[in-house]
């Protein structure tokens, strides 16, 4: 059993890291897109009301405010506060935040388990009585993060299921997968909570297990802890088939799309990327597009007068809005 748990744990970590990496690379390798920012952009610190460099006279002669650190910090912080939900749907926030805190802390818990085990392998005592401050720190970190994760995650999983079922608006757009996810996460957090409360109050089983992972000598653990470890490994394998990576892609959405106000400066990297895209072929089939040519050729050609135009209602158009109060023109 301990060997199966060890193999599953190794496999699940390798699996999730590989699939997430593939997804991230796929997003990063997408071509440069046209600008589509949305104000306010976070790095405009002097124009927090939502202004841009276009408010300046001859903006291209001035230094622009830029920098991603502020944006990254904001997004990291938002993962712990979920401010938009707090402002717009407090009841949803009350269950969503604990659910997500459960995820964040279970990851941190495992990281501390790993370092705790590593410290033990290196001969450091990890306990409340340890002579080493690091040993005491790792002991309490495992305990605190594990406890927070199991409690908030259990509360959040139940709460999310109830909220989505009881709110007609949310229920209408929910899929069976949503409810399966709540059930799955409930199993994980609740099994962790059970093992902690009834079997392993110091959470030392996990450090032992991780010690076995590091030394490649599988350690046997209590059944309740083993169940939690197995469920968590299965969950890691399942995660890439869900939208869970939004924790990471959210950063791209904000930094590469919503706050991407980088102008296309002549001779810049952006200009080179755009030129590359303009050399790609177009295969759109509408009559006004010369399919088969490159983008650059298609967009620099004027459409000819005899081509068939898109279908629209013929007789019903009253005329464009401008003309309703037409004035004499001379």
């Amino acid at each position, binding site marked *: 059993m301990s060997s199966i748990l060890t193999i599953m744990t190794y496999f699940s970590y390798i699996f999730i890291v590989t699939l997430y990496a593939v997804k991230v690379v796929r*997003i990063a390798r997408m071509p440069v*897109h*046209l*600008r589509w*920012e*949305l*104000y306010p952009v976070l790095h405009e610190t002097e124009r927090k009301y*939502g*202004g*841009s460099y*276009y*408010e300046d*006279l001859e903006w291209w002669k001035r230094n622009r405010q830029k920098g991603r650190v502020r944006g990254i910090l904001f997004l990291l912080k938002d993962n712990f506060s979920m401010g*938009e939900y707090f402002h717009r*749907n407090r009841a949803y926030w009350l269950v969503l935040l604990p659910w997500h805190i459960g995820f964040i802390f279970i990851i941190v818990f495992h990281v501390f388990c790993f370092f705790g085990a590593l410290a033990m392998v290196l001969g450091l005592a990890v306990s409340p009585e340890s002579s080493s401050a690091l040993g005491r720190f790792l002991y309490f970190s495992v305990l605190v993060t594990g406890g927070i994760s199991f409690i908030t995650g259990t509360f959040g999983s139940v709460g999310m299921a109830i909220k989505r079922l009881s709110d007609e608006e*949310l229920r*209408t*757009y*929910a*899929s*069976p*997968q949503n409810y399966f996810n709540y059930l799955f996460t409930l199993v994980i957090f609740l099994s962790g909570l059970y093992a902690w409360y009834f079997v392993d109050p110091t959470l030392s089983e996990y450090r032992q297990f991780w010690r076995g992972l590091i030394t490649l000598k599988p350690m046997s653990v209590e059944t309740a802890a083993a169940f939690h470890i197995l469920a968590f490994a299965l969950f890691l394998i399942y995660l890439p088939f869900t939208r869970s*990576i*939004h924790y990471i*892609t*959210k950063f791209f*959405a904000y930094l590469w*799309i*919503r706050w991407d106000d980088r102008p*296309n400066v002549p001779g810049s990297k952006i*200009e080179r990327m755009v030129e590359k*895209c*303009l050399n790609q072929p177009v*295969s*759109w*089939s*509408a*009559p*006004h597009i010369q399919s088969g040519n490159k983008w650059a050729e*298609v*967009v*620099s*050609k*004027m*459409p000819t007068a005899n081509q068939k135009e*898109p*279908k*629209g*209602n*013929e007789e*019903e*158009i009253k*005329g464009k*809005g*401008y003309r*309703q109060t*037409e*004035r*004499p*023109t001379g």
Partner: protein
Amino acid sequence: MKKRLRVRDIGKRSDQLVEITPEDLLPLPDLSNQSDRETPIPQLTEDQKRQYEASLDGVVAIGIQKPKNEKEEEEFVEKFLSGLKKLLSKDDNWTFLQPLMHSLEYCARCQICNEVCPIYLASGKQEIYRPTFRSEVLRRIVRKYLKKQGKFRSKFTGNDIELNSRTIGRLAELAYRCTLCRRCAQVCPMGVDNGLISHEIRKLFSQELGIAPKELHELGTVQQLEVGSSTGITPKALENIIDFMQEEIQEKTGREIEIPVDRERADILFLQNAGEFISWPENTEAFAIIFDTLGINWTLSSELVGYDAVNYGVWYDDVQLARIAIRQAEVARKLKVKRISVGECGHAHKALLVVADRVLTGDLNIPRESAIPILEDAVCHGKIRLDPRRNDFPVTLHDPCNLVRMSGIVEPQRRILRKICPQFREMEPHGVENYCCGGGSGLAIMSSMNFQAWKETISGRMKLKQILEAFQDVLDPATHKYVCAPCSNCKGQIRDLLNSHGAWDKYGILYGGLVELIVNAMVDLEKPFIEWEWR
């Protein structure tokens, strides 16, 4: 209580998915002299219903002909799927692939975006107008028909949808029940953009199936590229208009001001929405007076496309967007001007300054700017002699979405108004949180069949409510009031909104641009520039 519509109902066989009654609508402020009685949106004729796809909400924006037989229906579905594949390809849709994929894949279905959508709220929360509804339709089609998930996975992930000509026709119409104002995107913690999805659906129909509202395509971008302007103004007609505007400036101000055309090596090529030339020439006249006072070396162009700032491509077709932006830049290059300045036109700002920025390369990459900071510099640094007492009437500011939320030009226009309008008051909310006028993304110029009534009743309702609330303390029609809308399309929509609710007669509310207020305050002019008459 009405039964809640499901996403899968988009393909349902029914004459009309929703029927909107006046009782459903968001109430307007309870004003003492309000004599409004809501009239329902006019019904289409039986013949129109037979001919065009109108089964979404009984309104027609595009005018899609219904397939006449099974073969036509199959072709329609196949072409749609072919376009959908191209929408997800990096060759055909490099322009928006990354934002689109993100918005398709990472919606958490939390629904918090709906409560900020003016159309959804104004309609009395009609399910079909929910920003997430149309996005969910597209997502389900992608998963079921392109990714071809098996039966179990399809059920598990909730891909319950049927693709037929009704689904496609309704989806096309639904893409034009969104003004692309992107308030929904602004509040999404995941960065999902339902406005972008509307934009991409429109593109699919235009670029693959050749389906787009006639006002945007044939009378819009195609006419602009062929005739010179989406208004139909030819270079010859432009000459007459310029003569007329020069004469009118002289009549109003006593000044002989030349509106320069095709002046080589000017500092500024001034790009004005040609709708101003026809409907509101006083706007261009005001710019001419200000530029003349400031001694700016500027010019208009008489070249095709060079005298019309509009670029409707930004709303529905990337190819047309790029063609127009390139043509405008070529005109500037030929004239050897130092920069292009865009007048009071929100979408032209977004198109030329922001979106098409990554289309213009090499020597077409000429500096492009908004004219509003020039105005701010003139007003706030005392370069024009102004007397705010000349503007001593209530003024509120409409924020065009494309100017504020999409281009980040928020404060300069406010600094001007605070300086020259003693009774300036904000609408709530305003700035980057503003509500769309209801005519955004081309809706302002679309008026086929009963679409005009839909805009006046639903998409513009929230804006009308804001305007009335901004002036609630001064509603007496004897007190003239001014809605400042620095955008041609917004002005068109606000004109129609105020007109349809009789706001000029009942409340004395007029609308206009920003420059008119500046010129109205100029101490050097004997007569007021703003004429208080309905236009």
